[in-house]
């Protein structure tokens, strides 16, 4: 054994000195703490910059604005934790609204109107059907979910244009609009529904076998399969659930805008996915939670709302969202690399 003067070994010795500080830094869980810190930071920032920001009205407003994207984000969170993706969410959403609207009013190709509850059921079934088809293509035909759901996106848009003739549909019954526009005890129904969906999904992910196995599949599909988890079944179910939740968002959208619109989903394909990632859920699966998604959704909502209050236009809002997203993903990736 001889003593080395190799610079590599020397620098190793030096690192021991500075490592106590580094160790403290390493202990921080950036992926969880980062988005929450960001959220708190911009809330403080906007409350200083704008007097209207922290008003009850504005807070309710923010929640109402994020509800629809939030429910879609919750749906796609299941998918992303399972290490798959769904690009058809913003197509399922308007189609379900159009189907439900048509059934309730007898519009489009529907010859007669049916009760509202049947219409709602039809809307949800539409979402379930297309989600199921994506899931089947991914699990059984082994088509990567990126391609399966991208194809599904075009298929749904084609169906939607054919069914609606690209025309909007008015005269949605009030009882149906209530979900998107009504209030209970002064709180918008849409917000209550968002919170209920969040609480239920958070519970499913944390407390049920179903939720646990989604993490296992997302973390290591092969190990999950070798441990006796029916991976195919899970893929089909998870994409079906995502479809149902997007259909739910579509029903709320009917009340929000007061009509069924083919264009209701334009520009909404990626914001829900961005919100999930922003919250710290890993795009590669296995890591994440509904709580993180909630933080991500709020972060995006607060940012847009605050900039709006300050008079910043759509240009500035998009720019800011992009910058925040890239910072969030960068810290997320660095946090993952450290482990």
């Amino acid at each position, binding site marked *: 054994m001889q003593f080395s003067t190799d610079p590599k070994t020397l620098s190793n010795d030096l690192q021991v000195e500075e490592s106590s500080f580094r160790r403290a830094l390493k202990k921080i869980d950036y992926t969880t703490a980062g988005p929450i810190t960001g959220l708190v930071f911009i809330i403080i920032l906007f409350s200083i910059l704008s007097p209207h920001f922290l008003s009850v009205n504005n807070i309710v407003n923010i929640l109402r604005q994020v509800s629809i994207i939030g429910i879609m984000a919750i749906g796609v969170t299941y998918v992303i934790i399972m290490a798959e993706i769904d690009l058809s969410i913003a197509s399922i959403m308007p189609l379900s609204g159009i189907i439900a609207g048509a059934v309730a009013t007898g519009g489009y190709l529907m010859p007669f109107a049916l009760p509202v509850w049947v219409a709602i059921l039809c809307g949800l079934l539409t979402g379930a059907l297309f989600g199921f088809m994506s899931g089947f293509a991914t699990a059984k035909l082994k088509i990567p979910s990126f391609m399966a759901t991208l194809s599904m996106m075009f298929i749904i848009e084609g169906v939607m244009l054919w069914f609606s003739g690209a025309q909007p549909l008015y005269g949605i019954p009030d009882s149906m609009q209530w979900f998107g526009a009504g209030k209970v005890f002064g709180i918008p129904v849409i917000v209550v529904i968002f919170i209920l969906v969040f609480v239920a999904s958070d519970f499913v992910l944390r407390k049920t076998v179903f939720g646990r196995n989604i993490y296992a599949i997302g973390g290591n599909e092969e190990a999950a*399969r*070798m441990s*006796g988890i029916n991976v195919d079944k899970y893929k089909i179910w998870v994409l079906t659930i995502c479809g149902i939740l997007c259909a739910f968002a579509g029903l709320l959208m009917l009340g929000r805008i007061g009509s069924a619109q083919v264009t209701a989903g334009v520009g909404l394909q990626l914001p829900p996915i961005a919100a999930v990632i922003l919250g710290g859920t890993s795009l590669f699966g296995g890591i994440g939670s509904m709580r993180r998604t909630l933080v991500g959704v709020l972060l995006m909502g607060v940012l847009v709302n605050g900039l709006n209050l300050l008079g910043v236009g759509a240009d500035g809002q998009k720019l800011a969202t992009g910058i925040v997203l890239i910072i969030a993903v960068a810290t997320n990736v660095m946090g993952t690399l450290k*482990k």
Partner: protein
Amino acid sequence: MKQSSPNEYLLYTENLGKQFNGITVLENINLTIKKGEIHAILGANGAGKSTLIKIIDGIHTDYIGDIYVKNQKVKPANTEEARLLGIGMVHQELSLVSELNVAENIYLGRLPRTTWGMVHYKKLHQDSAKILQELNMSVKTKEIVSNLSIADRQMIEIAKMLSMNTDIILLDEPTSALTENEVKRLFYTMENLKKQGKGIIFITHKLDEIYATSDRVTILRDGNQINTINLDKNDPDLETKLISLMTGTEQGEIGEIYPAKKNRIGPPIMEVSNFSSKGKFENIHLQIRRGEILGISGLKGAGRTELARAIYGADPKDTGILELNGEIVEIRQPIDAIHHGIGMVTEDRKKEGFVGLLGVKENISLTTIKDVLVNGFLSRKLEREKTQTYVSKLNIRMASEDARVKNLSGGNQQKVVIAKWLCTDCKVLILDEPTRGIDVKAKSEIYKIMSDLAEQGLAILFISSELPELIAMSDRVLVMSRGRIVSELSGTQITKENIMKSTFQESAVQKEVG
């Protein structure tokens, strides 16, 4: 121990060694390669042969010791640098780009250019054709590689190495995919290269190939250089000598790390008959009893893992019947195996054994999550309690039950994987290389666990490439070779010599086991 002047060596190493995660896999290797020499390297699985030449080829760069090429101390940082030093390698795994054609593959990364910087296709195909001719191959240079047979691809791999025109040539089991005729052509080419003064390092598992080609042979065992000898082809005891060098004869250390064997064997529990899967294994019959540890020995590619995976339902089989307690059961996927009480600890624990991103407790309950439910929902408390039981039973060392399994040491990871099966009521447990890549202390703990489980009546199918553990732990050993069971050894027949003989001698008497 160099006696002659180093000048005559194309390449030599001084005390070369390598560790993986703190485990020494290669130690104090002093290899010398002369000009115009074919130097064979012989050793069992895991003896360090591939590691050794991967160091020389610049693939493993964090080694200990020194490498000298033409008396210059070198430290190749990658294969590109190794090639510039005059070292070329033919890998065990094929590394061709299957969508490109033969010529493009031979000159991959070194395509000849025209003065305009474009690919000089004419020269490319001419040069390639010349090399193929040297190898006496009839393949067209414009043929797409994916259309070629495995044997032809292996020959293209060799052509690629030849095109580099290096002085030192590393061949890692080049013959495993070749037919007899092609092997002859390869040996002829090797002989030519030798005449040109090149030095060839040749790794093979087949003794007859060594006799046919090599001048000297270096024997490795457990990462140590046991000896380097001149091959005297007239020595009648050569084969016995080589096998005994490969296996080693000292057996003193065994008592320390292995638990004592106990008589605990009960009635038969599982019987496999007529298992076949094309290209993997053929007509396998085996029976295992309660409380028995049945060892399966063989080289890589002999079909051991493939057989185990077929029993467990991880891979499909062509034919075969599996009986448990005398009843025929159908196993199509792992979940069926688990329902019937068969568990499997896979060879590659990182890929198939655990979910690295999840914690210890989540991993332990992967197979038996229903046991930690209260009113249908997961109970963290119950899960934590269950985890604690196995953690103390198996002595798993970790920061907390929530520690991600990917951050644990290899030994602790393996214990987590085993714990996953202990909590199912499995009756047959398949262990595929359960001690690979873990330290001696953890190994002895795993042997203890195996012995305890067998005592409780579990039947264990134990696949291992490490003969000492296989011999010490198994009540019976089946030796597999080329997809068949070639011999069954029990009691005092279980010796290194017998296992090695069955493994390496192609002429071993085929024996039906059932």
